[in-house]
C-alpha cells in the first residue's frame, strides 16, 4: 500500500483523506470547525495559557502548520508564525479566519474561566482536538503551579511524537480490490425559518445516571438512545412539513465514529467515518421503540470493519483517481464545492456527534465545572448536535443557524423530560428567548 505523504517534498504535508474536502468547501454556512472547551473554578491567565500553547506546539509539531494552496491539492506546511490565544467571542464553531490566527488551523480561546480549542477540520477530528485540549490543560496546570494532572489517554509532553501520530491511516487501510461503498439518495431536510450565520447554541445538561437508566431499559447505549430521540423528533417535524405519507423522504442521521479504537491507530489527524442511521417514514409512522431497534441494528452494522474498509476504499479511491489527482486545484475547488452537498449533506437530515465520556484525573475533578463540545452547523442541516460526557453529567449542545426556530431543540428536550430525565437548558440566544 502506498503512503502518498512519503513521496512528498520536505515541508509539504499532504492532507489526510477525509480532510481533503474541508478547505475547498469552507464558506459562509460551511465553517467545517468544531470546539472543545473546559470551564474551571479559577480565573484563566492569558500569559500562562500562552506558555501552555507554546508547549503544545513544541510537543505536537504536526499541529504547527499552515494551510496552503498547491497546484493539485491543498497542503500543510510548517508555520513559523507565533501562535496566538484569543479571547472568547459570542459563539463557538464559527467561520475560521486563518489570517487573524497567524495561519494556524486551530485556535486557542479563553475567557475568565474557560479554556477552549477551536479547530478547522482539515487539521484533525474531535478526538484529536480533545487530545490537544487535554495537553493544553495539563501544561496550563503545570505553568500555573496548580498541579501536574495527567489525563488517562493524553499525549505525553516529554515523549517524542510517534510516527503514528501524524500518519494517515486511511492510506494504510486502502485496499483497491474491495468494492466501493454504495452512495445513497437524498434525505429529508427541514425547511425551518429564517437563518443567519451566527451560531445559536442551546445547551442541555442532563445527569448521566438518569439517561443511562432510560437507555438501558430499552437495551440501547446512550449514543443510540440520543440518536433515536433525534430521529423521532425529526420524524414528528417531517409529519408537520409533509402531511402526505408516501412523499416523505427518508430521515437519516450522520453519526461520526472514531475509528482509532476499531482499527487500533493513534493518529492525531482525521480518522473518522460516518455511520448513517435511517428510518423510512414513507412506510409509516415509527414508534420510539421501533426507531431504537433500527438505530441499534444499524449502528452495530456500521461499525463492522468490513463495511468501514469498503467506505475507506470509496473515499481514498476518489483521491487516487488519476483524473481527480492531476486536475488543478483551481478546477477541483469549484467542483468540490458544487458536488460536496450532493455527496454529503444532501444524504442526511442531521448530524449527532457523540464524543463519549471524558474521564478526568483526580486533580481536575474538583476544579472543572463544565466540559463542552460544539459542532459547526451547515446550510442544508442547520442544526448540529454534539454530545459529551464528564463526571456525572452529559452536555448536549445544539448549534443552529436558525434565527428564531428552536422547534427541534424543543421537541428533543421535551421528549427527554417526558421520559423522566431532568434537563437544564442554557442559551446564547437573545435574553427574551
Amino acid at each position, binding site marked *: 500500500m502506498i503512503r502518498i505523504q512519503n513521496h512528498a517534498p520536505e515541508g509539504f504535508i499532504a492532507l489526510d483523506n477525509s480532510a481533503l474536502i474541508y478547505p475547498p*468547501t*469552507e*464558506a*459562509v*454556512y*460551511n465553517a467545517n470547525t468544531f470546539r472543545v472547551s473546559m470551564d474551571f473554578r479559577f480565573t484563566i491567565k492569558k500569559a500562562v495559557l500562552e506558555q501552555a500553547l507554546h508547549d503544545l506546539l513544541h510537543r505536537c509539531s504536526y499541529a504547527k502548520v499552515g494551510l496552503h494552496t498547491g497546484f493539485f491539492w491543498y497542503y500543510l506546511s510548517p508555520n513559523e508564525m507565533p501562535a496566538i490565544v484569543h*479571547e*472568547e*467571542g*459570542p*459563539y*463557538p464553531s464559527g*467561520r475560521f479566519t486563518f489570517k487573524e490566527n497567524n495561519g494556524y488551523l486551530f485556535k486557542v480561546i479563553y*475567557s*475568565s*474561566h*474557560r479554556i477552549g480549542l477551536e479547530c478547522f477540520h482539515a487539521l484533525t477530528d474531535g478526538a484529536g482536538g480533545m487530545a490537544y485540549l487535554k495537553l493544553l490543560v495539563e501544561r496550563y496546570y503545570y505553568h500555573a503551579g496548580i498541579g501536574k494532572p495527567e489525563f488517562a489517554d493524553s499525549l505525553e509532553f516529554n515523549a517524542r511524537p510517534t510516527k503514528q501520530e501524524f500518519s494517515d491511516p486511511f492510506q494504510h487501510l486502502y485496499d483497491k480490490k474491495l468494492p466501493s461503498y454504495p452512495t445513497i439518495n437524498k434525505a429529508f431536510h427541514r425547511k425551518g425559518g429564517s437563518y*443567519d*450565520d*451566527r451560531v*445559536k*447554541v*442551546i*445547551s*442541555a445538561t442532563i445527569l448521566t445516571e438518569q439517561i443511562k437508566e432510560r437507555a438501558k431499559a430499552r437495551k440501547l447505549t446512550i449514543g443510540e438512545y440520543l440518536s433515536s430521540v433525534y430521529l423521532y423528533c425529526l420524524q414528528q417535524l417531517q409529519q408537520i412539513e409533509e402531511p402526505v405519507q408516501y412523499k416523505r423522504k427518508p430521515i437519516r442521521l450522520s453519526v461520526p465514529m472514531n475509528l482509532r479504537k476499531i482499527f487500533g491507530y493513534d493518529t492525531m489527524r482525521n480518522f473518522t467515518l460516518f455511520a448513517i442511521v435511517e428510518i423510512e417514514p414513507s412506510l409509516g409512522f415509527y414508534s420510539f421503540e421501533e426507531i431504537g431497534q433500527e438505530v441499534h441494528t444499524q449502528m452495530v452494522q456500521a461499525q463492522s470493519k468490513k463495511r468501514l474498509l469498503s467506505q475507506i476504499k470509496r473515499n481514498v479511491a476518489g483521491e487516487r483517481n488519476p483524473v481527480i489527482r492531476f486536475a488543478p486545484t*483551481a*478546477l477541483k*475547488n*469549484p*467542483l*468540490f*464545492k*458544487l458536488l*460536496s*452537498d450532493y455527496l454529503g449533506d444532501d444524504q442526511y437530515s442531521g448530524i449527532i456527534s457523540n464524543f463519549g465520556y471524558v474521564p478526568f484525573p483526580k486533580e481536575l475533578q474538583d476544579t472543572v465545572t463544565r466540559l463542552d463540545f460544539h459542532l459547526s452547523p451547515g*446550510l442544508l442541516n442547520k442544526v448540529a448536535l454534539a454530545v459529551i460526557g464528564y463526571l456525572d453529567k452529559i452536555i448536549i449542545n445544539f448549534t443552529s443557524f436558525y434565527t428564531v426556530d*428552536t422547534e427541534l*431543540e*424543543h421537541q428533543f*428536550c*421535551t421528549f427527554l*423530560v*417526558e421520559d423522566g430525565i*431532568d*434537563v*437544564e*437548558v*442554557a*442559551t*446564547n*440566544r*437573545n*435574553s*427574551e*428567548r
Partner: protein
Amino acid sequence: MAYCVRCGVKLTDGAKSCPLCGTEVHLPAGIEEPVAEPLFAEPLPKEGTKGITKAKKGMLELIIILGVVGELTVAISLWIANALAYSFIPLFSIGIAALSLLAIVLAKPKYVQQASWQCLLMAVLFLGLDGVDFAWFWSLIGAASLLLFWFCGVFPWSRWAAEHKKVSALMMLASIIVFLVFMNILLSQRLTWFAPVALPMIAFITFMTGLFYIWLTARKIKRIPVADMILGILVIILGSCTAFDFFLTHYQKGFFALRWATSLGIAAVIILTFLIGVSVSLRFRRFFTSHNQHD
C-alpha cells in the same frame, strides 16, 4: 432555579424566558434570582455576517476558470493562426458571456435585478461588437431598444415603480417618445416622420389606453371578464393600425385617407360598438352571456 411551565426543563438562574418555547418566567413577588454566567463571554451580535455561500462560491470559481480558459484558448489559437487582429470579437464575447453568468450568480434572484444586469451587459456587447472600428450604428439601435425594453418591461416591476405608479407610467411614455426621436434622428439624420406619424400615434394609443383603463376601472363590479379584456385590447390594436395608416398616408401622400386599414377600422368600430352596448345595456349583455351576474 426556575422551570419552564410548558416544556418542564430547568432554566438557568436569572432566565427571563424558556429558550425552547419562549414562555416567560414569572417568579413569585419579592423573589429575585441571581443571574447565572452567560454561556459565552460576549453577547450574540445583532446581525450575522454577509458572505458568499459554498455553492455560489463554486459557481463563481467555475465561471471564472471557464472564462479564463476560454479566453486563453481562443487567443492562443488565433495567435497560432496568425489572426490576432480578429481576436477582439471572440474575446470580448467570451468576456461578456462570463460576466453575464457571473451576474446571474451574484445578482439577487429577482426579475428586476437579473433583467437589468442582462440588459446592461447585452447593450455593452452590442456597442463593443459594433465599435471595433470606432463607428457605431446598429448597436445604437440595439442598445436603445434594450433601454426601451428596460423602461417598459423591467422598470414597472420594480418596488419604486409599484409605489409611484403615475410617475412610472409617465416615465414609460417619455422613454417611448425619446426612443422614437432618437431612432428618427439616427435613421434620417433629422426629425422627419416623428412629428407627423409617431407623435399622433403615441397620442392616439395613449388616449385609447386611457379610455380603456377608465372604462375598466369605472365599472361597478371590479372583476374584469377575460372577453372584455381581449376585445378592449383588440380595439386598441386595430384602431392603432387604422390610425397609423391614416397618418402615414398623410405623411407620404399629403392627404388624409385610409389605404390598407379600412377593414381593420371597421372591425375596431364594430367591436367598440359591441363593448359600449354590453356596458350600457344589461339586456344586450345578457343576450351575449350565459349568466346574468354582470353589472
